């Protein structure tokens, strides 16, 4: 059984009905190794899917497998091989991060000495230093999220489920967490299923994105297919937007105005040319440049596209 041959997880006609709502509706989806994003609005069925994949919740109908194990019968094997970071708070405030992560490692079957080493390693990887000896009650949201991630990684799983890991973080904390998730997927070699209701942040870290809405699959494809749409750059200048647009158009660029922004289509054959042209034009006209950023086709667009 090689990692590449077995999908990280696969579902087939997966349906989960609760007495009052249908959380998942005939969901058939497969995810390979790497970082997979699971996107959907609140209540789209993301957490329910994770619970089913962990073998903790029986589906109403359909089947699911994780790392080749059947969720209905091999829950223990699955939970031995995966890590789980829940969306909600789950840290006892009077314990230190070290104690807690060591304990959780033992709960995954690591002997005490190995649990200690792994906990120290993992906490360092998630970026928790001296504060790991302090009771967790006094931690900031960013630190708490790091501890939650550490406890999911401490037993070196093959796959981790991260439920809304950026919830409640400030922009800096969000970036740090996303960078960490990317490292887990690439450098650590642990496959990741990460959920979010924010589409924009997932496109930065994922190889593959699954979009669900109302428990139904909206789209599942590699990230480059989401973003392969034309590359554009957005330019904002203090004044003289009009002059800049004229100058760039004259130079052969495709320019469109969007409010205070100018979007310039990046040349497919020679991307450098467009960037140079924008730089030179702004410079020659002596304009005050406020913003210059790369724009790609956004995952958001899936929701705008009519669904077949």
């Amino acid at each position: 059984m090689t990692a590449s041959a077995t999908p990280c997880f696969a579902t087939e006609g997966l349906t989960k009905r609760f007495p009052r709502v249908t959380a998942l509706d005939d969901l058939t989806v497969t995810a390979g190794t790497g970082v997979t994003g699971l996107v959907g609005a609140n209540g789209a069925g993301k957490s329910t899917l994770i619970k089913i994949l962990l073998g903790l919740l029986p589906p109403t109908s359909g089947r699911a497998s994780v790392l080749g194990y059947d969720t209905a019968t091999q829950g223990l094997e699955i939970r031995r091989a995966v890590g789980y970071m829940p969306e909600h708070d789950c840290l006892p405030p009077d314990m230190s991060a070290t104690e807690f992560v060591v304990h959780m490692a033992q709960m995954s079957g690591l002997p005490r000495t190995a649990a200690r080493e792994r906990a120290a390693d993992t906490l360092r990887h998630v970026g928790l230093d001296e504060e790991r000896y302090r009771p967790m009650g006094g931690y900031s949201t960013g630190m708490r999220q790091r501890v939650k991630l550490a406890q999911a990684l401490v037993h070196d799983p093959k796959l981790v489920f991260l439920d809304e890991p950026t919830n409640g973080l400030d922009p800096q904390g969000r970036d740090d967490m996303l960078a960490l998730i990317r490292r887990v997927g690439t450098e650590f070699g642990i496959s990741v299923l990460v959920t979010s209701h924010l589409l924009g942040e997932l496109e930065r870290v994922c190889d593959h994105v699954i979009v669900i809405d109302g428990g139904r699959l909206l789209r599942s494809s590699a990230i480059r297919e989401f973003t392969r749409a034309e590359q554009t750059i957005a330019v904002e200048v203090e004044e003289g937007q009009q002059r800049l647009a004229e100058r760039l158009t004259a130079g052969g660029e495709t320019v469109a105005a969007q409010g205070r922004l100018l979007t310039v289509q990046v040349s497919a054959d020679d991307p450098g040319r467009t960037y140079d042209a924008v730089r030179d034009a702004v410079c020659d006209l002596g304009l005050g440049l406020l913003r210059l950023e790369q724009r790609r086709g956004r995952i958001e667009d899936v929701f705008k596209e009519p669904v077949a």
Partner: protein
Amino acid sequence: MTTEPTAVIHDIGYRHYDGVRLGRGRATLALGVQSLRGVFGLGRTVRAKIMPLLLAAIMLMPTVVSIGVMALAKQFVIPYPNYAVIMQAVIAVFLAAQSPYLVAPDLRFRVLPLYLSRPLTVTDYVLAKLAALAVALFGLLAVPLTIEYVGELLVDLPGPPHTADYFGALGGAVLHAVLLSSVGIALASFTPRRGLGVASVIAFYMFTAAVSGIFTGVLISSGRDDLAGWALLLNPFFLVDYAQSTLFGTAPVNIEAAPPGVASCLILLAVVALAVTGVLLRYRKAAS
């Protein structure tokens, strides 16, 4: 875009773990041991240690007095089988103070889903918690009994030592541990608030003790000694006292009331089964 500060700070590289992975049993054992240590405040804050250690110290006091009297007056004061009934209030306070600690924080701070996302089942979790409390309660009783027994042997009183009584009392301590831990966990697991858990356990003890005391008093004074024994069974400590007397042949504390015999053992078994089933059902529900 993701190679900035983090890579610089933590550039030690990730190492995979390829050591042993123990089974469910060992994880359950680790949870039980950690819970047992926590019951006595070990590995917790100083404040968490005060109550259990103070109560454990109080449990030893009669032993010290008893050994003193044995040494000085050559008299045997506290019969081993009666120790638990004499100290019941202290044991009840210990139970009330410590059983919520075992279950309430995991519910309140939602640590339970983390346990269940690991190769540990609801039953494993509940068994580990019950076992931890049962071992703690057994220790709370067995240690003073053993010290008193060693004291008795060393003082060398006239007549044979009360060995049968000592072992009967140890058997009774096992019964106490099993009954009280299952009732304590059952009551405490219904609320995520530790304070409410403490209150409900102590209220349960006070209520059963009071009702049992009133009924027994009334029945004895009206000459219904045959029924008084049954009324006593309402108090968990007298329930165990009678079961202990039936199983290990020790003398019951109350001699006026007619002992209910085997029925006490059956009732004890039924209460334990009911409490454990209640806890399991409660956690099955919490897990989903």
